[in-house]
């Protein structure tokens, strides 16, 4: 992957990472160093667009959730739930309490699996100086346990999604107003001990990421923003920024300013003209007091680290979120004694605009649809977390590289640290690159 020069000049070199590994999708990084100064730096998302916002036009609104789930295999169920929420808001459909709880469990299954994929498979090898989690030494007690934990934790998240959604990726069961097919209560109850079993593994993971010493605090602090709620629900709440200001959900696209990055297949964003960041770090910064009480007790030593502007704390925040969703899932499963046979409501089309906002694993996800009287989508706007973080990602790599050059770091070290920082943002390129700016009139 690296373009290592044969005769290395520490003051003048190029870094060309055409395919960054251990991230979701394709991204590349080019750094040109001359006289020990950065002459050019480009972080670009190199996924090819699939033009979902155009493809949605003219299609029945009821068909959209399953279509947009295909925007991203990693966070497909987040797109599914966000799209359902937008259409329900447009058509004034109120889901039942049971539906809300089951959707939470579906989303929590995704959060466990997705955060675990990022932390164990992508980020942990950096801490242990390994190329891959699969290269962890099975004769080393600690490393072998982490390898076992990787699969055990991911599998529980996967199973939770399968029980509720019918499949962990592109779940077929959830629909507008409810579920085509409801889960079996016994399957959920049987999963309870497995959720309990992975709890200590996650506390261990929190401790590992809390000890990481890497620091990158952007010189200009970004505006952290997320959906906030009393129960840290990810699916409901009020949009807030770090300044404590509530943002109107229906008008979120007015606060977000699209930034065209000529060399990237994806557009970036600023929030009210400021650098911004969404995701686990933003959520912990804004809502740590709303974490599950058991979570707060077990990770109390680390909560004081938040609010934090250290980008590497995004990994720690994700580990804490896994514990929170395990604890909340256990509560929900304990409270559910039966699953009532509820049928999704009949849908009556009407001319309307619907907005859905949820917290996907990587941050705030926004779907907006304009629907006509026949129930067909006229326009769509989808804003994904990685787009919102893209401008800060490039700026962060720049500032870190500048610092490393001052510390006389070599090309290999600069490259490795850039990759670690990109992974700390946990970008999802599949999501980021498939939309065009929509002009709403």
């Amino acid at each position, binding site marked *: 992957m690296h373009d290592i020069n044969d005769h290395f000049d520490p003051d003048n070199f190029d870094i060309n990472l055409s395919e960054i590994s*251990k991230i979701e999708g394709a991204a590349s990084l080019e750094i040109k160093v001359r006289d020990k100064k950065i002459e050019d730096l480009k972080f670009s998302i190199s*996924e090819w667009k699939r033009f979902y916002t155009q493809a949605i036009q003219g299609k029945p609104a009821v068909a959209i959730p399953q279509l947009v789930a*295909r925007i991203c*295999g990693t966070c497909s169920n987040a797109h599914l739930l966000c799209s359902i929420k937008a259409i329900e808001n447009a058509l004034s459909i109120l889901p039942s309490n049971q539906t809300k709880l089951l959707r939470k469990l579906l989303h929590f299954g995704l959060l466990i699996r997705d955060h675990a994929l990022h932390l164990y498979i992508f980020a942990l090898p950096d801490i242990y100086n390994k190329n891959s989690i699969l290269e962890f030494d099975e004769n080393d007690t600690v490393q072998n346990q982490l390898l076992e934990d990787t699969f055990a934790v991911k599998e529980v998240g996967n199973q939770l999604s399968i029980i509720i959604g019918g499949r962990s*990726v592109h779940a077929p069961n959830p629909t507008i107003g409810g579920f085509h097919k409801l889960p079996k209560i016994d399957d959920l109850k049987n999963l309870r001990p497995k959720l309990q079993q992975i709890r200590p593994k996650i506390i261990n993971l929190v401790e590992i990421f809390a000890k990481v010493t890497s620091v990158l605090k952007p010189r200009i602090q970004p505006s952290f923003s997320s959906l906030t709620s009393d129960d840290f629900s990810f699916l409901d709440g009020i949009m807030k920024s770090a300044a404590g200001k509530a943002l109107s959900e229906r008008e979120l696209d007015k606060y977000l300013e699209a930034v065209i990055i000529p060399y990237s297949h994806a557009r970036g964003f600023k929030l009210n003209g400021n650098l911004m960041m969404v995701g686990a770090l933003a959520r912990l910064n804004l809502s740590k007091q709303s974490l599950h009480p058991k979570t707060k007790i077990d990770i109390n030593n680390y909560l004081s680290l938040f609010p934090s502007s250290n980008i590497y704390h995004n990994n720690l925040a994700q580990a804490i979120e896994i514990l929170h969703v395990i604890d909340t899932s256990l509560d929900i499963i304990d409270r559910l004694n039966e699953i009532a046979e509820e049928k999704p409501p009949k849908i009556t089309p009407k001319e309307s605009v619907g907005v859905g906002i949820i917290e996907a694993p990587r941050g705030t996800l926004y779907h907006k649809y304009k629907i006509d009287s026949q129930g067909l989508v006229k326009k769509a706007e989808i804003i994904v977390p990685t787009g919102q973080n893209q401008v800060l990602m490039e700026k962060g790599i720049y500032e870190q590289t500048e610092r490393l050059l001052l510390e006389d770091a070599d090309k290999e070290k600069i490259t490795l640290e850039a990759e670690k920082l990109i992974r700390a943002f946990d970008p999802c390129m599949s999501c980021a690159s498939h939309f065009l700016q929509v002009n709403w009139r």
Partner: protein
Amino acid sequence: MFHCSTADKIKSMNNKLRIGWFSFTCCEDSTIIFTELLNTHWKNWKNSIEFAHAKVLKKSPEIIPEMDVAFVEGAITGDKQEEKLNNIRQKAKILVAIGSCAVVGSPSNQRNFFNRSQLEEIKPILERFKYKEKVLKLSEIVKVDDVVPGCPMNEQVFLQIMDKYLNTNPLSFRENEATEKSSEETSDVPKRK
């Protein structure tokens, strides 16, 4: 299509099946299914397979290495992708198309069916980044030996194919390659490669 006796059981030089996992234009849903299959299958596979290239799991070489089996998901939408796919085909004894976009092109090929006004909207992007005129499925560019259909890929079909190649004699691969090359030269089916 490749056929072999499941009784034959030897693999590459180190006795492991060298596999590659590649993603082109798609949502990478099958990559996720694959990483989830590792949860329950890695213990059985770890002594039998070696990842020659799998960007999702490890830093992988920029030069495509020689492989026994290349699993390829996604459709082809740019010339550079076509070039890379041809390279993978040359380096892999077996190429398996993974998931709907690789096998039939959909849904990544939805722009192939856009109307005039939709095409006008996306034209500046297509031109700036040199997109192909049409999105292509893998078999429109290279010979595909096996397919795992589905969106995401059908797990059971994938596991059957993994089992088949884990039990394949590499000598059969080579004999098959020679036969295929000879039949390609006389085939009426047009191939872009």
